């Protein structure tokens, strides 16, 4: 049994996948000798050598293109896009090529690759290095979208992502890299598409992802301790495939729902969940699905501004209270 950080679980997860399958290799910028800007790939170059851990030029399109082409032959590349914000410079490869090629080829081509990327705010890096972009990939048919909230999920979901025959975008949250967990067994697998309950409760359903799932859990603890409210916290873990059954089951029980998204409001994943709940559980709802999101603004940089832009534990607590007690 060992304490593992989220950061360390990333490199361990990659290493485990690479040990198991010679077809797995890793490409990214500054990932080898330097172990990555977030130190999440330390040790990989040493263990697997330059042929399997490749330092690339600043050429995100070429990185993902090469990963895609290699995947088309049956290899299983893991490609790093250093910050998820940089998906924008290679968005054509992601959204138009990787996502659509299987379908357009009538299933002739499989693209079993993983794109892992550092996502989310909290580091005061400003508007171009802090975005939460899970919804960018959720909206593209053909992409699976995973966003682990803790070290064991990193381990288990990375294992599944690498084995998955389809392209998976794996969003690691920058503000979780230092998050620690006691791990008994590191070589684990968690199926993609199964949500995780972080807190049990029948008064309200709070749905979160990544950092927001952890904040929702903290909020649930406070709600229980201080306000006698029992919130069920669902960590979606993946947006595609989506565990709609778990959501439905809880909503039927609670009748109240709060989604907590880190992205700016418009067309966030919470909008999709809200519309789904509305369609599937309309009669069970005691009130509208409330969406807690970052306001629809780019992320500011200064501490005070960033801290007050991204949904906080306090905000979640207050929104739940307002919702349930009308305060």
């Amino acid at each position, binding site marked *: 049994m060992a304490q593992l950080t989220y950061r360390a679980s990333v490199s361990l997860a990659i290493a485990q996948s690479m040990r198991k399958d010679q077809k797995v290799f890793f490409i990214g910028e500054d990932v080898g000798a330097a172990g990555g800007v977030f130190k999440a790939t330390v040790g990989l170059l040493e263990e697997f050598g330059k042929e399997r851990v490749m330092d690339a030029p600043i050429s*995100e*399109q*070429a990185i993902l293109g090469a990963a895609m082409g290699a995947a088309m032959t049956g290899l299983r590349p893991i490609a790093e896009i250093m910050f998820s914000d940089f998906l924008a410079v290679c968005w054509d490869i992601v959204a138009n090529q990787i996502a659509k090629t299987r*379908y357009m080829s*009538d299933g002739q081509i499989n693209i079993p690759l993983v794109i892992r990327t550092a996502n989310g705010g909290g580091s005061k890096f400003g508007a171009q290095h802090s975005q939460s972009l899970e919804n960018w990939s959720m909206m593209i*048919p053909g992409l699976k979208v995973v966003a682990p909230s803790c070290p064991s999920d990193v381990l288990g979901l990375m294992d599944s992502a690498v084995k998955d025959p389809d392209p998976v975008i794996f969003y690691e949250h920058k503000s979780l890299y230092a998050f620690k967990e006691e791990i008994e067994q590191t070589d684990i697998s968690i199926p993609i598409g199964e949500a995780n309950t972080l807190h049990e409760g029948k008064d309200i359903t709070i749905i979160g992802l990544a950092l927001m799932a952890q904040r929702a859990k903290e909020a649930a603890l406070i709600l229980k301790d201080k306000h006698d409210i029992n919130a069920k916290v669902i960590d979606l873990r993946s947006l595609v*495939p989506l565990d709609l059954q778990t959501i439905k089951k809880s909503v039927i029980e609670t009748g109240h729902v709060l989604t907590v998204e880190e992205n700016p409001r418009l067309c966030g994943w919470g909008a999709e969940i809200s519309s789904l709940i509305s369609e599937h559980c309309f009669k069970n709802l005691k009130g509208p699905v409330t969406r807690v999101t970052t306001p629809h603004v780019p992320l500011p940089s200064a501490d005070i501004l960033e801290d007050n832009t991204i949904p906080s534990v306090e905000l979640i607590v207050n929104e739940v209270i307002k919702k349930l007690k009308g305060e």
Partner: protein
Amino acid sequence: MVDKLNDDIGEEKRLQLWEMMLKLRLVEKKAYDLFLQNLIKGTSHLALGQEAIAGAFGVALKQGDYTFCTYRGHAHTLARGSSIEGVLGELMGRQCGLMKGKGGSMHLTDVDKGVMGSYAIIGAHLTIANGTALASKYNKTNEVSVCFFGDGTTNIGAFHEALNMAKIWNLPIVFVCENNLYMEYTPIHEVTAVEHPAADRAGAYDLDKIIVDGNDADEMLRTAEKAISKAREGKGPSLIEAKTYRHSGHSRADPGKYRPDEEVKDWMENKDPIKNYRAKLLDFNINEKIISEIEEKIKDQVEKATEISMASPIPEIKEIYTDVWANGGSEWHN
């Protein structure tokens, strides 16, 4: 005058090339006829006039090698041995189409033949082709990857990224720029800082400057073979600029009126790769009967394939929901 004594190519290969080019020509012409009959919807980009390039590579490549082409990819697909009905059927949106109508004319794909897809957004496929080349290197197998694209493609960012990466990783890949003098309607020289859009950039990636007459099938074959061998021997990438011209407009919607009449006439009459190659075959004393027999054979093949594809049913509506995922379906929730 041809030097018959030092013929490095030989009759057999020449006839192969002849047959190949003719097939590409006649299928494209058939595609054109089918548009006129309104049997092909959507758009379509013909490579009429550019057959020597795809043809030469078709002859020079081995089974197992990978090719990547663009929306103007019927010829490149056929050149790898894909069936004519597979191509025409796809254009017409029939079940016999290479992708059952799901991809359409701009996305022809035939993995069994090494046709790793046709890509309709400029530049992307250069980066993807690096990937199959990387796989060959990674697996220590010796396939070669070939990526075809146009002159206009040399001005997009992905071109630059792909070439640099191919060179630094010494990938077994051949980049083939078919310089047909125009992007869609804009003359390439009006939007390009250098005269030779690909070749004048080769130095930026420490590659040789290679310019070839893309309408001279023999020269094209020699150039292709050399670059392919180099890649296969682990000596890295090449960038070839092949000068050529499209006989028709950019796409179905385009009558090509922005091009000077004399220019079009010159290329059609004096520089047609097929017309000229026929003459060359005769120069090499190849029996005209053999040449004509091949013509007849191909015509016949094209007609038969046309019948097959016209008889092929349209796809079933349920195809909409298949093959988003490797499990064959399109479900995104449980």
